[in-house]
Structures are given as C-alpha cells and as structure tokens.
C-alpha cells in the first residue's frame, strides 16, 4: 500500500513536471512559429527564388532546350511514383529495376543530345538536373564496383584481399573534398597528352571511387550476415562458386544492406553540393552565383532556406522510397 501511494506520487510529480515542460516548449514553438511565419511572409524577399526558378532547375541549359532536362526529371519522378504505388501486374514490377537503370542513358542522352537532338555541352548542365545526374551516375557506377570490392575483400586469394582492403580503407580515410580535388585537378596529369575527360565526368569518376569504398563495406556487412549453411547447401546442390555468388550471396547481401545503401545514396545526393566549391554550377553552385549578382546581394536566408527545402524534399523522398522498397522485399521474402 505504501509502495502504491509512492508510485502514484511519483507518477503525479513526473506528470506535473512533464506538463509544465510541455507547456513551456509549446509556448516557445508557438512564438518561434509566429516569428518565422511573420518573416516568411512580410520580411523575406522571395524574388531571388521566384525569378530564377529555371536556373535552379536547369542551370544555363539553352532556353529552347530546357524541356529535355525537364522531361528527364519528370520521368524520374513518375517512375518513383510508380515504384511507390507498387503496381500489381507482375511483368510491370519485374521491369521496374530495368526501367530505373534505363533512366541513366536516357538522362545522358537528353542532356548531351545527339541522334537528332542538338548537342549541348556539359558546361551548360547545371542546377538540380546536374545534381541528380551526378548522384545517379555515380551511384550506378559505384554499386557494381562496390560489390566487386566487397567480394574482393572476402576473397580467398591473399593478393586480391589485400588490394581490396587497402583500397577500401584508404578511400575511407580521406575527406571527400580531397578526392574531388584529385578528380578535378590531378586526373588530367595522369592522362596522355591530347586526351581529355570532361569535367562533369571527372567529378562522377571521383564520386564513384569514393562512394564505392563505402558501399563495399555496407555490402560486406550484408555478406557476413548470410549464414554459412546456405553456401554449403548451395554447394551440395551442385552450384559452382560463380553461381553461388551470383544467385545466393549478392541478392541477399543487397537486401540486407539496403537501409545502409539508402543512407549512402542520400549522403551522395547531399555531397554533390561540394562541387560548388570546386567549380561546377550544380544546385548549391547556382545559389552561390546568384548571391553574387548585384540584384540579389545579401539575400542569404532566402536562398539557403529555399535550397535546404529542395535538398530536404529530395532526400526525404528518397528515404520514403527506400523504406517502401524494404517493406516490399521483406514481404516477398516471407512469401518464399
């Protein structure tokens, strides 16, 4: 009985304290909200955003060709929505991964032109479309490389194992900006005279080198989580090493590593902003260029808030998409 009253007392005092705290916090949030709203509507000058929306989206892409990056972004978004809804037709669901991979050549074709479309040099690529291109390209290249490195690190061949480990560990020890700096300024020194690699592709190359080391570690985690009995079972079924790796190990490792891989993708999307320091005019770069324009001088808060919301929206969208995918893969697993 004594214990009971003590418990009640404790709960009450906690509740009282909790209630006061909640009230205080709500008050602060409310004040902050009113203040922010007031600023957003009355003090802020959104011209720096509204007047330059096409620049944020397409950079200095020729005006009459802007439909091309627009079409690409729209096709990516609609594909995401289709993935989210999760079509019931089996053939449609089966072709989704292929469709995703196909968006990459489509994007490169739409941006660079050729085959009937006028050519647009990569210096005109910019804004959100460049940010997305950098992310998607690097990710799709880094994934196979990462799998390769992860398998290499688990390999029975000591040389392959050592080399993979050295690569992965040293890549993970250096800052991204140093790798990007290498990509922009030092790669040309390693190429034969007369051979040039475009600046955007050098950036993609550097991102790929960097991200693949992180992806490799995530996939290695996935590989290690697969019980050995499965490999033994597969071997007794008569599958060879390649078949085991290809049909048993990789699909499962990818599924297990999916949350970690999603984080890599989101991180990569954000990190493309580092190219603003190294001279590409991607989404953040456009913001910095506009802030140098005498017309918009000093409009930092507006530009930064706008850019932050764009990045936030895209990253959150990617996270939602991935969580959805995880769930579906989990369901499929139980079905099997």
């Amino acid at each position, binding site marked *: 009985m004594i214990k009971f009253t003590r418990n009640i007392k404790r709960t009450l005092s906690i509740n009282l304290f909790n209630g006061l705290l909640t009230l205080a*916090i709500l008050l602060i949030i409310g004040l902050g909200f009113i203040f922010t709203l007031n600023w957003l509507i009355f003090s802020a000058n959104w011209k720096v955003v509204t007047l330059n929306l096409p620049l944020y989206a397409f950079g200095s892409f020729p005006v009459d060709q802007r439909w091309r990056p627009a079409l690409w972004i729209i096709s990516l978004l609609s594909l995401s929505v289709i993935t989210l809804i999760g079509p019931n037709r089996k053939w449609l669901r089966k072709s989704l991964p292929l469709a995703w991979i196909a968006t990459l050549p489509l994007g490169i074709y739409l941006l660079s032109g050729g085959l009937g479309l006028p050519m647009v040099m990569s210096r005109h690529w910019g804004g959100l479309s460049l940010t997305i291109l950098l992310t998607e390209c690097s990710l799709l290249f880094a994934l196979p490389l990462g799998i390769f490195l992860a398998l290499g690190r688990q390999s029975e061949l000591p040389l392959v194992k050592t080399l993979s480990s050295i690569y992965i560990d040293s890549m*993970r020890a*250096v*800052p991204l*900006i140093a790798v990007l700096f290498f990509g922009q300024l030092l790669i040309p020194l390693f190429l034969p005279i007369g051979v040039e690699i475009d600046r955007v592709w050098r950036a993609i190359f550097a991102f790929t080198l960097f991200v693949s080391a992180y992806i490799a570690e995530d996939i290695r985690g996935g590989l290690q989580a697969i019980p050995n009995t499965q490999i033994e079972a597969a071997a007794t079924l008569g599958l060879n090493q390649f078949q085991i790796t290809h049909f048993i190990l990789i699909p499962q490792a990818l599924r297990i590593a999916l949350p970690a891989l999603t984080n890599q993708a989101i991180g990569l999307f954000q990190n493309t902003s*580092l190219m603003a320091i190294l001279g590409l005019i991607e989404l*953040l770069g456009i913001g910095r260029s506009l802030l140098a324009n005498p017309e918009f001088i000093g409009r930092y*808060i507006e530009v930064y808030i706008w850019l*932050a919301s764009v*990045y936030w929206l895209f990253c959150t969208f990617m996270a939602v998409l991935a969580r959805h995918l995880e769930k579906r893969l989990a369901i499929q697993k139980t079905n099997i």
Partner: protein
Amino acid sequence: MSKKLTYQIVVLFLLAILLSILINNLSINLSRSGLQLSFSWLLRPASFALAENPLPYSPSDTYAWALFMGWLNSLKVILSSLILATFIGVFIGIVRTVGNSVLGFLAAIYITLIRQTPLLLQLMFWYFVAFLGLKDSIFMPIKGMISISNKGIEFLGLSLSSEFSALLFGLSVFTGAYIAEVVRGGILSVSRGQWEAFRSLGFSEINGLFKIIIPQALPAIIPGLTSQYLNLAKNSTLAIAVGYSDIYAINDTVINQTGRTIESFIILLSSFFLLNLLISNLMEVINKITLNSKKI
C-alpha cells in the same frame, strides 16, 4: 601451377600495367610543364598572414610551418567539435528514447532537418546568416559572461572567431544528429528488463539511465561513435567555405602560390592519415578503458 596463383598473377599484372601507364603519363606531363617533384619549396617563406595561429607565426615563416599551423587549426576545431557533438548527440539520443513526447518530437524534427540537408549548406547558413547576420549588434544572453557578435564569441575571456564558431557549431550540430541515432540504438539494445529492474529498485529515471543503462549500452555505442568522429574529422575540411584556415584551406593557398599541386596533395593526404590515426587510437584507448571498467 594452381589456378589461384594464376588469377593472382593476372591481377598483379593488370595493376602493374595500369600503374606504369599512369606514372609514365605523369612523368611526361610533369617534364612537359617543367615541374619536377620536389619538396625544397617547403622551406621558403610563405609570405601570407593567417587569421588564427595556435603557435607563433609570421608571414616570413616557412610554408612548412604555415601548413603545420593549418594542421593544428584542423585539430583544434575537430577536437572541440568532437566534444560538443558528443554532448548534443547524447542529449538528443536520450530525449529521443525516454523523453517527454513534445521534446521527443522536437528532437525528431532536428534530426530529419539536419540529416536531410547538405552539411556545406548548413555551414554557410551558420556563418553567413547566424554569425555575420548579427551585423553590428552584439548579442549578450548572460551579461558579462558571454557575448556573441559577427566577430565571434567572447566567453569568460576566451575569444573564438566567428569562422571557428560557425564551423564548430555547424559540425557539432550536424554530427550530433548522427551521434544521437547511435546513442539511441545503443540504449535500445539494452534489454527492457534492465529498466524494470532499476525502477523497482527505486532509482530515478535519470539516475538509472546514467548508472545502469548507458554503461551497458557503451560497447554498442563506441564503434558507431568512432566512425562518426572520423566522419567529423573528414568533414572539417569544408572549413574553406566559411573562411577558417584549416589544413585544406592553407593547402589551397599554397598550391596557388607555388603551383606545387602534387606535392601539396601528398602533404594533405598524409596529414589526414595522421589525424585519422590519432582519432582511432584515442577511441581504441577509450574502448579498452570501458571494457576494463565493465569487467570490474
């Protein structure tokens, strides 16, 4: 010859070919531009001033000394962000797990805001909006103890430049959001029974959390913490965006003045390996201490 050995020789050869081509190209390109690799320029006077130097430095000191100042500046901001980020992370992590629901909601908003926007953008926000946005007004939350202006923070005689402060807050708030998730994961890994146990023993929530739960969560937390610390160190190179003279920023200046891109890049990489080594060894020691204390 065994199949395994053959594979390895093939790999070795391909690698050797690739390397020899790259090095060959490099030497051709270097000799063509008349730049031979050399480090003797490191001993020439740097002739640029620094805003912040932990040890005495003047523009007539050598490039090597200037680079060392950059390295110390990096170390300074990394270590202080590391401490602040840990505090933020632990606090938010605890609030997310056991706190008041409104507070928990706020913490969730903080985490999504910070994790879903680029760090570079956040740093620029801290510097150009939060600090420089103060213009000429001076903000004094506690009179006589702390004053914040666009020149930086004065705290009981300790003065921090606004560049350093922006980087410190930017990095700490960013890394804090990641550490919070690590801490939360660690706390959740401790079985629910432990909570019931200390409650029935009459421990208060806070007391029980720090005396019973967190010590048990530490082994799960420390590896995650180490990797976040290493990330923080790497991310500190974004200092260049807010005008703080870290190792990367000083390297940038040196490359511009001397044209020694490759040598400076090598120096940059080695200083990073050194920093990494320092942090991972430090964490190794901490790990050992916690493991030992657990045994006792």
